[in-house]
């Protein structure tokens, strides 16, 4: 770990902890996040974690850039990884089917694996939530097996149904709400990923782990899933 603090805006500093995306980053990121929140207290406006960085947005009326840098330095001195695994483990039911996951065939062709095997491999792994972004509750998870990795679509879809589960490079994610999107879609989850009535709003938080569980069409519908085909939503 090579810690750097960079200027990003008048009232924002970027804490850069790593240069590569890795699952091993996470205990350090969580520890740094916790310490920064404690150090800034009420003067913290937002803390935006991503794969290798934490952006600190602080109250400019309370802190000068120099004071903010001091707080960061104090918060991160003697940093030790948070291995208490405070994160939750989620199991997301997924109806894997070409009608809602049109890129299942593409991934099968690319990998040379049968569609069933693509599904098995995607759901046979525990993923880490690296960051939330793009949309409320949209969790960037990884890493998917190399053989399933696929670049984003050349032309993003104008509309991707809520609950759609996709793959982009070695990351996987589920769309919380209908939105445009360029990920390779392989199925759909009935889980409500963002709920303004829920404590903490987002089902998944950075540091959580997620496993996908293949369910039948009937189970998907029973769990409240919406099977509207993609084309009907476009």
């Amino acid at each position: 770990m090579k810690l750097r603090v960079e200027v990003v805006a008048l009232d924002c500093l970027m804490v850069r902890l790593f240069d590569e995306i890795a699952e091993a980053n996470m205990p350090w990121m969580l520890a740094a996040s916790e310490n920064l929140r404690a150090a800034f207290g009420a003067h913290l406006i937002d803390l935006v974690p991503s794969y290798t960085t934490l952006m600190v947005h602080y109250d400019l009326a309370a802190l000068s850039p120099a004071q903010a840098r001091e707080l960061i330095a104090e918060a991160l001195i003697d940093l030790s990884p948070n291995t208490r695994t405070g994160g939750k483990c989620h199991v997301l039911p997924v109806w894997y089917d070409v009608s809602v996951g049109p890129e299942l065939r593409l991934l099968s062709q690319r990998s040379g694996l049968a569609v069933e095997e693509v599904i098995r491999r995607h759901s046979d792994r525990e993923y880490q939530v690296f960051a939330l972004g793009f949309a409320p509750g949209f969790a960037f998870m990884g890493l998917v097996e190399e053989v399933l990795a696929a670049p984003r679509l050349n032309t993003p879809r104008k509309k991707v149904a809520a609950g759609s589960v996709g793959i982009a490079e070695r990351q996987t994610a589920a769309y919380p709400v209908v939105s445009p999107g360029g990920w390779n879609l392989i199925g759909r989850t009935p889980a409500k990923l963002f709920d303004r009535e829920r404590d903490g709003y987002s089902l998944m938080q950075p540091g959580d782990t997620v496993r996908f569980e293949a369910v039948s069409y009937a189970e998907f519908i029973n769990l409240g899933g919406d099977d509207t085909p993609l084309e009907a939503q476009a």
Partner: protein
Amino acid sequence: MSRLSIEASTPLCLLQDAGRFGVRHLGVTQGGGLDWRSMSWANWLLGNALDAAVIEITLGGFTVVAEGDCLLALAGADLGAQLDGQALAPWRSFKLRKGQRLQFTQPLLGARAYLAAPGGFDAPKVLGSSATVVREELGGLDGMGRALAKGASLSYSAEAPLLMRELPREQIPDFKSDLPLDVVLGAQIGEFSGQSLFDAFNSAWTLDSRADRMGIRLLGTALQYQGKPMISEGIPLGAVQVPPDGQPIVLLNDRQTIGGYPRLGALTPLALARLAQCLPGATVRLRPVVQDVAHREQVEYLRRFSDR
């Protein structure tokens, strides 16, 4: 409980406040009035908290009729506002009597006007704010992120102040100013070619019509980033990001929370306030500024609002 009924509106007329904070780590954008300075003055004119909910009217096309006597305040762009056909200049509080009509016609100076009401317009707070973010279905009158629509009713609950107020002339922002926009330089600044750095701060940039509450594209000499591809990271308000086509985009209140394009830096809040009042086709220049200097300037500006 004075009320206004909306007779005409557009998708660019939105309920806004200072924005949504403490939720960016969940992927929720900031939102809020694009010209925070004019929005704050609109609230100041009524003695409100500076972040009380206001109406952001972009370009015009908005009309309300009073269902009871109201005291309101107007700040920001001159959108040809008319009170029962009589021109109404911004930067003042004013009375709107029962049955009177307030109409915003077309932009005469600036792009965004802010209409404030005593204590702020009534609206539910969603994730701590009433700011309307259409894309995220958050905020606004019903909390579902919808723009203000014809037929809807606006209300406020606080007592109106007794005195009408006008902003002292020396405090009125100059929307015609051609001073460059200040950019706090970011960490990737050294990864742009020397020529690009020269171009960035020595040429004129034209505001593209491809502009919305997420960002405004600047057209001009393409800038060349020579660094490594970046891993997505948090994006500050006002970030000047440079995608592969070299045409910078200034990211605004409704931007995505993380992204992976290199950045020249970020506009200061005062520069953002000015940019928010520019129309497509306008030209702007950029000027680098040191973080400390920009910070002092901002703190000094904020003191102006404490004079109540």
